């Protein structure tokens, strides 16, 4: 009985000693700063920074391969914390939010067919989508599934909606959309041209009630000259010039331009 205790005890001591030596010998050098940076990152592993997850970004920042403000969802708060860990002056991140550049819901752009199959926008895109519009939202919600922050949902009318308060601007939805309908816009910009269709006006009118018909009224009415025509058939807004005046939204005959100030005011009244 005693032999067994002694033998096991001795074996335990010897192997313990070996393990202790091995731990010394093969110790992985870990920069404490990486651990520190990782602890302040949001931990969503969204991939918006372009590095493999938050730990990848932490290592990259530590090695100087990424700036301190590379974490877009973290915003200024995280950027400042990382800057203080790294001991450099922080640069401000311009907060961005995702915008769905399509208003073609079930009421405005009817589905021409029913769809049975893989419920993924990429699959549906290979069949050309259900609406007449070859550029608009496909409506199966791949962006909603891709959002790591729960900041999107599908409206009953079949369009994804961004919850601005929750959106961090990581861009996961932008990458998930096979039709490039979603884009990132500066969070303080309130006027958006919500159409991606490059078709000519008469064609657009056939399939969507809220599509840009390239009338150019917005281009002419913009006091800041922030709107121009892309490929002659789609109005595009240059956010760096836009001052949120919203005149274009009042001129647009098809209401393809939305002034969020108006809708927000409306929401407060109701």
């Amino acid at each position, binding site marked *: 009985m005693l032999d067994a205790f002694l033998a096991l005890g001795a074996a335990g001591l010897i192997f313990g000693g070996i393990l202790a030596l091995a731990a010394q010998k093969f110790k992985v050098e870990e920069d404490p700063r990486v651990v520190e940076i990782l602890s302040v990152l949001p931990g969503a592993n969204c991939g918006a920074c372009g590095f493999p997850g938050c730990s990848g970004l932490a290592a990259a920042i530590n090695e100087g391969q990424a700036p301190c403000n590379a974490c877009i969802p973290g915003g200024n708060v995280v950027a400042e914390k990382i800057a203080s860990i790294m001991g450099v002056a922080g640069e401000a991140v311009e907060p961005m939010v995702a915008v769905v550049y399509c208003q073609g819901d079930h009421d405005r752009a009817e589905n*021409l*067919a029913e769809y*049975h*199959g*893989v419920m*993924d926008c*990429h*699959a549906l*895109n*290979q*069949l*050309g*989508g*259900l609406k*007449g519009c*070859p550029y608009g939202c496909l409506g199966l919600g791949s962006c909603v599934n891709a959002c790591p922050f729960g900041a999107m949902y599908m409206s009953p009318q079949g369009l994804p909606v961004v919850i601005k308060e929750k959106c961090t601007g990581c861009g996961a939805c932008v990458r998930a959309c096979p039709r490039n309908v979603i884009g990132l816009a500066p969070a303080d910009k309130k006027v958006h041209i919500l159409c991606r269709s490059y*078709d*000519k006006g008469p064609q657009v009118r056939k399939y969507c009630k809220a599509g840009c018909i390239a009338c150019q009224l917005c281009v002419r009415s913009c006091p800041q000259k922030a709107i121009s025509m892309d490929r002659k058939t789609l109005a595009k807004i240059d956010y760096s010039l836009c001052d949120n005046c919203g005149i274009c939204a009042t001129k647009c005959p098809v209401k393809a331009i939305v002034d969020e100030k108006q809708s927000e005011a409306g929401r407060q009244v109701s």
Partner: protein
Amino acid sequence: MITIKKMFGGVAVPHKKGLSEKSPVEFAGIPGELVLFLSQHIGAPSVSTVKPKDAVKRGQVLAEPRGFVSAALHAPTSGVVKAIEPRFHPVQARMSEAIIVEPDGKHELFEQLSPAVSGLDSISAERIKALAREIGLVGLGGAAFPTAVKLAPPEDKPIDTYLLNGAECEPYITADHRLMLEEAGKVIFGFKASMKASGVKRGIICIEDNKPDAIESMKEAMSAYDGLELAVLSARYPRGGEKQLIQAVLGREVPPPPGLPFDVGVIVSNVGTAYALADAILTGLPLVERVVSVTGEGVANPSNFRALIGTPVSYLIEKAGGFTGTPGKVVMGGPMMGPAVKSLDVPVVKGTSGILVLTKEQAAQEPVLPCIRCGKCIDVCPMGLQPVWMSAYAERGLIEEAEGYRVMDCCECGACTFTCPAKRPLVQWIRMAKAEISSRRNAQRKS
């Protein structure tokens, strides 16, 4: 004549050829507008040589091929070029540049067509090859691979056998069947011309045994030539797949992509392609029309039409007596591989062998259930792949793993989806993964 029963994988499908196989090929007529995509084929889109408002005549060149793997495009009838603008491409399922021709109804022939030739002896192999390129000939079986490329195999790959593909294994479609029945002489002539062009001595005509009348007429027509054999294959889907046909008839296995039939010394051409080549040699007319079966339980009079390339689907369905009741689904091509269309405004392209209209009841979908790991999809896969795993990984976005299961070798025949007892859209997942892998490879090549 040899008879072949065995096949690796495959499924027994209801053929449904009876609907249209008895109706002779008729000219469909000239519609109000023709839409001719610059990209009708595999390879680079052709380059337009006309401008809006140009007057064109039947057979006149509209677009020149760009590069080696590309094909020319010709005006199917006389009229005016209305516009060159993007239209919705039914096969590529996206906007694609197209030449819109407004016919004038006169159907005038272009004066400078290449001269007609009376017989095979009076045309050289080189001239046939050049002609295949000039007339914009592509494989009319569906894939639309430029025929001129096929007729010029690489020097280091000796070709010993030429297969004429008359299997037509897709259910419903009877375009090739009618051609073999009505124009057997021309089909064989075109086949001999392709053999001459590529310098191949041995030619085998392959037909499924569910077309006994076509076998008889082809037998009669081929007796005028020597060096031709006939292979009758049991009807099983996808018998007419190029690789499946080579394996069944010659026992050779085409290596996985980028392997081509060239690698095992074989060229395969479709019956419709041979016919179009014969037509071009004998009359000088380029590829401006093709036989299209408009069939299915959803049309009043299932028919086979000689339709101008670019004819709208709506026009052809009207010619076939219109819909019976409310249609459930309209498919470009056959039910196994053809893509469904959401609008009837899309035109016939060079690769369109049929337009299939299914009724509401036929198109109704059963709910998709979880995979029960029965392995039936593996049994029926003619490529020896494992659709169960490829689709499962694709479904979860694990693209590298799907690639590891060789998802790129899938020919998208649809046998797995057809046989799946849980009604899972296996091919759709596989196609998603394939598209993702292709786009990643393209991005890599660019960077």
